[in-house]
């Protein structure tokens, strides 16, 4: 039977973790157990090593301690803490998967100025009129109506660049980054709506759309 005390009241977690001495040490030890167990389950099947897991836990403890005054008390403290630790871990894994491709490398040769389709997508779009119409409108908006920042953020994120890397390179807060992407999506949606394509039409135009190689292996 586990001896860790995970059923503290939320206020006691915060008080103990904010304190020093024996109470804080015990709370940190218990929280370490909670986070480790949570991350093991959350990351199962992702090939995360024990060393990585330990690193994620240590960084999570620091992050949680820094954020203690933002805990709103509307959930169990442990659920909130595990959510933060998952953000820490998946951010690391996203950055690792992306590698060290810079925004400059991504932008080279006009790479982040328009929504170009690859050969396979081009062939797929040619077979579907409504889908092609949505694509053409989105291409026009991205090229003509967005600000430089909105265009770069939208296209880099769409290409898979982690938000955290993008924010660092552009010198933006996560909030400002989100706003740029949100404003870009709002502009896309407005233009589509103005051209008589509502959200249901957009959904149905792309229903069942997926890359041919992935569709054939499903």
């Amino acid at each position, binding site marked *: 039977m586990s001896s860790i005390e995970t059923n503290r009241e939320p206020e006691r977690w915060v008080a103990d973790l904010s304190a020093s001495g024996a109470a804080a040490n015990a709370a940190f030890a218990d929280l370490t157990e909670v986070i480790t167990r949570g991350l093991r389950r959350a990351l199962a099947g992702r090939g995360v090593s024990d060393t990585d897991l330990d690193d994620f836990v240590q960084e999570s403890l620091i992050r949680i301690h820094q954020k203690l005054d933002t805990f709103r008390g509307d959930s169990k403290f442990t*659920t909130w803490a595990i*959510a933060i630790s998952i953000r820490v871990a998946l951010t690391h894994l996203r950055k690792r998967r992306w590698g060290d491709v810079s925004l400059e490398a991504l932008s080279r040769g006009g790479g982040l100025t328009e929504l170009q389709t690859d050969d396979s997508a081009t062939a797929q779009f040619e077979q579907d009129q409504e889908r092609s119409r949505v694509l053409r409108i*989105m291409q026009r908006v991205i090229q003509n109506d967005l600000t430089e920042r909105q265009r770069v953020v939208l296209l880099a994120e769409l290409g898979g660049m982690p938000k955290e890397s993008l924010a660092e390179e552009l010198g933006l807060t996560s909030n400002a980054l989100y706003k740029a992407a949100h404003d870009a999506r709002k502009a*896309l949606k407005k233009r589509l709506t103005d051209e008589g394509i509502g959200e249901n039409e957009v959904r149905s135009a792309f229903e069942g759309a997926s890359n041919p190689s992935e569709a054939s292996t499903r």
Partner: protein
Amino acid sequence: MKYTLDQIRDLAQATAETRPDEIDCDEWLARVAAYIEAQGAGAPLDPDMAAVEQHVRVCPDCRAELEALMRATEEG
């Protein structure tokens, strides 16, 4: 850079799900623990929780984090 059909579909779907007022990823993180517990308890969605659901329809990173949190907190 050239985009695949999947990537363009994801952008189109996120565009369709876009709302004038959305919460960002930091606010989503602040609310998701309460959301997942309310879901587990079968509680009705209030506007704060509905915003959590809307956010994952436009943010693939937070969608992956929600799925991971569900695995981390499920019983058994």
